């Protein structure tokens, strides 16, 4: 990068909710530091850059792209590839880009079931409706296009080469600052970590930062959060309340256990773990207090939707990635 030249930055969203963009705004006055150091060339929530402006850029003209959201349709993939070509550094920003996120839960059902529910069988659809959206609609001599809907949700690294991953739903603003500062510092000779690193998060589990008292875990019964009033000072898992803290990266600020609710794993697995849900499976199995198969089954009935808990944010990133039920 030439001296005195501002960083060229893009922030973009795939199948997203906007929370990662709000996380950037939640860095508050730091946004002004970003403005001093960078030209934001594309950021649809806040800035008027259009796709044609990106297409007109030279390859590698962008120093940094923060891409949040999952890949759900052809537009998400097309823009991901466009931005990859135009960017020196591509970051999968937030749980959806990193692991598939909440939209990834769609991988446990089918596209057909979703269509049916949205356009045909629901309490408020227009009576007698036979219409559903199409990727092409003829209007007179012209054709209107909509993106093609994919059969399943992908994470960003399934469709483009990703340099760094920032976990979180959304990433904590303090972490966002750290990541952006590291990139800004490269202009003064700072270096970035090895490609493929997960940044903006701890390499240790949530439990290390959680202030609750931890003793021995021997669980004879699981409780759903509404069934019991939690002791705010004691480890949730020890109380039989499902919490993915032991297998989830810290860095989020322990926001959920501090709200008296169990962690659901949005910061993703610890280093070296290939399948977040499988790791949680092992962790839970270690603390179940029984040696009898029937009793074990009964205890596990206290967690009615294990897959939706253990893989809440990461079905597309799991080893099996999606249901094979058709």
């Amino acid at each position, binding site marked *: 990068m030439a001296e005195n030249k501002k960083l060229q930055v893009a922030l973009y969203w795939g199948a*997203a*909710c*906007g*929370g990662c963009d*709000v*996380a950037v705004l*939640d860095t*508050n*006055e730091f*946004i*002004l530091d970003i*403005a001093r150091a960078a030209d934001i060339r594309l950021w*649809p*929530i*806040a800035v*008027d*850059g*259009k796709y044609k402006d990106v297409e007109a850029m030279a390859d590698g003209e962008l120093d940094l792209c923060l891409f949040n959201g999952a890949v759900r*349709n*052809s*537009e998400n993939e*097309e823009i991901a590839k466009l931005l990859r070509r135009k960017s020196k550094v591509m970051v999968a920003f937030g749980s959806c880009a990193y692991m598939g996120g*909440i939209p990834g*839960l*769609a991988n446990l*059902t089918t596209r057909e079931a*979703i*269509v049916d*529910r*949205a*356009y045909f069988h629901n309490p*408020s*659809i*227009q*009576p007698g*409706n*036979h*219409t*559903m*959206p*199409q*990727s092409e*609609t003829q*209007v*007179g001599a*012209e054709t*209107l*296009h*909509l*993106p093609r*809907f994919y059969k399943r949700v992908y994470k960003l690294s399934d469709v483009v080469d990703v340099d760094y991953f920032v976990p979180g*739903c959304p990433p904590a603003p303090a972490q966002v600052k750290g990541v952006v500062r590291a990139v800004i510092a490269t202009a003064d000779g700072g270096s970035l970590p090895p490609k493929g690193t997960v940044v903006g998060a701890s390499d240790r589990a949530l439990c290390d930062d959680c202030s609750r008292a931890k003793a021995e875990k021997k669980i004879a019964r699981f409780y759903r959060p*509404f069934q019991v009033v939690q002791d705010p000072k004691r480890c949730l898992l020890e109380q039989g309340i499902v919490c993915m803290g032991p297998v989830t990266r810290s860095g989020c600020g322990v*926001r959920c256990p501090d*709200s008296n*609710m169990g962690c*659901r794993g949005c910061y993703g697995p610890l280093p070296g773990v290939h399948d977040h849900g499988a790791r949680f499976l092992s962790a839970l199995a270690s603390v179940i207090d029984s040696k009898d198969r029937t009793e074990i089954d009964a205890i596990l009935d206290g967690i009615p*939707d294990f897959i*939706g808990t253990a893989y*809440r944010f990461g079905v597309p990133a799991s080893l099996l990635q999606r249901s094979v039920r058709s």
Partner: protein
Amino acid sequence: MTRRIVIDPITRLEGHGKVEIFLDAGGAVEDCYFQIPELRGFERFVVGRPIEELPRIVTRICGVCPASHHMASAKAVDGCFGGEVAPVAHKLRDMYYHAHYIHSHIAHFYALAAPDFIMGPDADPAVRNILGVVAKVGLEIGGQVIRARALAQDIQQRIGGRSTHPVWCLPGGVSKGLTQPELEEIKPMVKELAGFTQFSLQLFRDIVLGNKGYVDLILNGPYSLDVHNMGLVDADNAPNFYDGMVRVVDFEGKEICKYKPTEYAEYVAEHVEPWSYLKFPYLKKRGWKGFVEGIDSSIYCATPLARLNVADRMATPGAEEAYQEMYTTLGRKPCKALLANHWARLVEMVQNAEMMERYCADPEITSDQFRVIPRGITGEGIGIVEAMRGTLTHHYTCDDKGICTSANLIVGTTNNNAPIQMVTKKVARTLIQPGKDPDQGILNMVEMAFRAFDPCYSCATHSLPGQMPLIVRIHKGGEVCREFRRNVDRVRPDGASR
């Protein structure tokens, strides 16, 4: 030969969208389509999840208004468990929700809308954004804006544990309460926010009302529709964002209907067009009549302006004063000038702050009885709140183990899909003149049409399409005026996308 103009993506809103404008041979706007290209499928993939987990899953419909979904979902889940809720939980939720409103309205007004007014609608796109605004108004004012939104987010975190994507509501209440020390820290923050809401109104008076061109644009420009209004009201017909009855009023001021949340499916239905993934809600009893204005229209808006249009008064004194000033200036109630939404948003913020002040003075607010353990599962619940962008409905059913068996959502911005389509077309037709290529400033003014609605398309889009054969016939006045046929013989294996 038709020419085609595309605005892609639309910007300074939440979510994905594009506008396709077709010009006729003479260069006048022949047609205009506001297409929403995104969907995710929440209504389907929450099925099979424990119903008490839904409030923390559906927040991911939107990261700008997650608490709207959290609250509507919590109320629907409460219903699935019989509806008993600790009284102070309702107060805490409402208090949190007011802070949430302020965060979102500040973000919209200053970051998304204000650039058009402070930098000018045809300013260089590189500066027509929040960073340009801060550079222009100076760090002192810019810093105040940033600080005010930060306070609103901070207050939410102190009350409910998290601002973006709260995990706080449970059937029967909330998972944490407010302690006295926490309340003492919040009080001065609320006071500062109350001052900021008045500051924002004054800024609006100075920059927008003080500019004749803008006033003319608001009152006499093409950003106007003869369609109806929807909003939640309390027993006094004052706006209530967390709870109440749904009231629909036509643009002449006559009440069309007023219904309980549980009756929503009798009053609202959703129409589908093949060129957008987003459905088009309309007044069910009138039937779908197309994208038409008029007193018999079945189209309605659900926006801050609509909420104030259906209300007879505000719920708090300072807000009431601001509301009276607004309608006196606008000269008409209901007001049809859609750019007045930006003003209505600021009026609502005054009520948000005053309500928070009320809760700060309520001795019950620090009660530790913020939850009841539900006694049984009744299997169905409907929760309606006013999202910042419109009336939001969550309707769930669950089985006897409390596992979700169905979900139906009608989301804030979805209500406005038809009005946005209509006003975008109207504005495009007015501003794009034959013989003159529209520059980026004109196209931005076309975008200002939807921006008044503060749309949230991540919210609106929660369904999924496929590739099926289709025949669509458009009927007008009893005759088929247009027919679209698509893949009636077989599905093409590789349809083009863009």
